């Protein structure tokens, strides 16, 4: 299926806008925290979170490049950011092609919003090089296969691969994939029931096996050797960075990179996250209100079956949330929730979900009436996003620090 001439013209505008959105945040700097994952490998045993590091080091060695070069890492990450961008644009293209019944104005408004939410996240230096990029890429590839209903069996090995990449995958991006499979299974009369069950079982088993193996590694000196080698490589990369002052201070390999969830971690970080969440509720209030109105409107149009799936999707979203208060980073999980919402929305649009189409048309008409408010909302969204890794974004982090300095004195 090809885009019509009009769609191609509109789509080019969307892509151009998205490219600039990406570069608004992307200064190609890698934070020290995000470099750490590339220093891990399987040399000391099969363990969690080491696949990306192993892949990177193998690729770089095969190509004869300098393993300890900061620039090599930058280029490696830029390549994968481009892949992420192309997969996103492909998803948008699928929506344009398949959501034929929805009027163009509404379709492109949704895509502009999705672009603002999704495009720039992994370009920001706090997230550039983050392991979540690879999880998102794998998720988007799986979505593409499911939407086209081609080679859907590949979803299994891809999901396992993602679990090898990061131990937290099963309660993060896998849930996005799971929700999509549940939705598409419903739309295609139960086609993916077996795939859902097998993938859940396989990913879960992979998590358990890797966790046990990593535990066995921990009991010996192999973890210490791995950490020592990793730290040495990390230090070499940091030293090679042209503008070291831009990097996030001395970096260490965090315990949770080696698997296992660090509950609480440093308590002041958890307290800061809680304060930032309250600040974010205020800053994001216009969008929360909009989302609530949208959901209320959508629910009024849903039939019983659709309403049941909506409850399932809500439960999945709730499962993702607690991780926001852990050491892993609130901003990271907020992006995950936004990614989840956008992806489900876009897929439902592509599948021609009637209730959703009607709701979006009504929302578009609402904004057509309040043009300047709508423009400022989109501008405000650009200013609020992308989210960071640990802090939610620049604004919440800054306001939280101000509150702490003036009143709380916690950190």
């Amino acid at each position, binding site marked *: 299926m090809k885009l019509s001439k009009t769609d191609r013209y509109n789509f080019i505008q969307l892509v151009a806008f998205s490219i600039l959105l990406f570069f608004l945040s992307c200064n*190609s700097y890698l934070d020290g925290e995000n470099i750490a994952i590339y220093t891990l490998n399987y040399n000391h045993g099969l363990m969690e979170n080491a696949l990306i590091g192993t892949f990177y080091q193998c690729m770089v060695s095969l190509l004869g490049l300098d393993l300890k070069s900061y*620039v090599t890492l930058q280029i490696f990450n830029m390549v994968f950011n481009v892949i992420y961008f192309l997969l996103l644009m492909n998803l948008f293209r699928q929506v344009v092609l398949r959501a034929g019944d929805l009027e163009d104005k509404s379709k492109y408004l949704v895509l502009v919003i999705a672009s603002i939410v999704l495009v720039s996240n992994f370009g920001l230096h706090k997230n550039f090089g983050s392991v979540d990029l690879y999880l998102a890429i794998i998720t988007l590839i799986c979505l593409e296969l499911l939407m086209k209903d081609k080679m859907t069996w590949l979803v299994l090995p891809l999901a396992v691969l993602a679990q090898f990449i990061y131990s937290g995958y099963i309660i993060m991006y896998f849930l996005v994939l799971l929700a999509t499979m549940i939705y598409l299974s419903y739309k295609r009369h139960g086609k993916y029931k077996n795939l859902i069950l097998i993938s859940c079982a396989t990913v879960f088993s992979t998590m358990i096996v890797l966790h046990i193996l990593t535990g066995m590694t921990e009991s010996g000196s192999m973890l210490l050797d791995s950490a020592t080698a990793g730290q040495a490589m990390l230090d070499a990369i940091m030293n090679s960075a042209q503008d070291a002052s831009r990097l996030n201070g001395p970096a260490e390999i965090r315990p949770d990179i080696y698997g296992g969830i660090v509950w609480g971690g440093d308590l002041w970080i958890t307290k800061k996250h809680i304060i930032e969440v309250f600040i974010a509720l205020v800053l994001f209030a216009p969008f929360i209100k909009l989302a609530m109105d949208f959901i209320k409107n959508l629910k009024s149009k849903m039939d019983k079956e659709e309403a049941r799936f909506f409850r399932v999707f809500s439960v999945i979203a709730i499962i993702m949330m607690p991780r926001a208060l852990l050491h892993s980073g609130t901003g990271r999980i907020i992006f995950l929730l936004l990614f989840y919402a956008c992806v489900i929305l876009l897929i439902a649009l592509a599948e021609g979900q009637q209730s959703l189409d009607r709701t979006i048309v009504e929302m578009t008409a609402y904004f057509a009436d309040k043009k300047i408010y709508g423009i400022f909302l989109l501008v405000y969204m650009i200013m609020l996003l992308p989210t960071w890794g640990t802090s939610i974004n620049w604004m919440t982090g800054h306001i939280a620090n101000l509150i702490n300095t003036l009143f709380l004195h916690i950190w």
Partner: protein
Amino acid sequence: MKKLSVDDRKVFGLIIAYMIVCGIRYFEHILSVANSCLYILSYRHGFTSRGLVGHIWLWLNDHTPFNLVTYSSEYILCQLLTGILFVFFLAFIYVSLRLMPEDNKRNARYLLVLFSIFSFPMFLTMENFGRIDIFLIMITIACLILIMYEKAEWLIIPLCILAMLIHQGFVFTNVNIILVLLFYKAIMADEKKRKVKYYILFGLTLVTVSVFFLYFEIFKTTLGMDVYNELVALNKQVSPDGNYYKELLQHEILGNDVYEMETKYHIENIEELPLAIVAFMPYILIGISFLKNLFKKAVGIKEKLAYLAVIVGVATLIPEWLLKVDFGRYVYSMAFYYIAIVICLMILEKTDGIVARQLQETKEMIKSKTIMPYLLLVYPAVLMPLRDIAISQTTINILRMLRLQE
């Protein structure tokens, strides 16, 4: 005097909210070495350019119990000045909404949104926070308000003198819009008395700013190494990191040409400019179409001359583009010029003016070419804030990616 309508009040409220969010989002909390230097230049050693603000600041330091020659004092001053600048921006928006004919309001609101998107983030960045341009823009807005209200317009001349004493670059970056509007009023006036009034105002303003510029650039004397060393020490005292602004002090105190010292910045400009042109291309094309059709609509020699002046008024920036390096500031100056002048003309023309008609036609043209016309107002936010040597962080980031190197 008529109040703002409900819709206008909503728009104004949204702009205030946007202003507050800009303050949180874009403020970088640093007064740079370059901008801290501007408050220590004074007339103590002679009638030097850019000396007025520093002279007043140092006078206050000598005659008040406060120690103002510190980084933190200057920082607080600049915060106050930025706040006052924002009040001026809001005043311009408020007056524009108040005086705008009802038929033109809808399109004027979009222009004011665009004005806000360009203006509020600009002076919060490290490069522009506390910059002397703040005063120039405040003075320009004051002059525009006088022109729009047609009251006490004689004040334009002393205000322009004040601006020239603050920064002689005013002659290139900001006075153009004032001169063009005065010229427009002069040439379009029907009554002879009115015509003479505005020609005199135009002439006196032009002559005044030119005289001051020529004095500061050609006739002023250098102040010598002793003064230079004294100011270097003073700059180090007020700067955030103990450095000093070498290029400015060499130029202003020793009279040295700094073109070669700024070579690396010129190279940065040349590298970034093509990217910025591509990024701003939608506005360049729409702007050219608007101005071309505006000129075509002008009937008779008077109108043609008036609108030709509107179109080419921004040419006063050409010397800056060619010789200096602050491309971000010049992009802002151009955006400010065209947006503000269209708003002012829509007010001065009263109803059914050709500027308003052309703006409406341009809007219809845009809506016919895209189903996302709102993107043209959202899109500048992706390029903000404008910087000084760098035009936009977005284009700089593209450049960084293209030049990934050890």
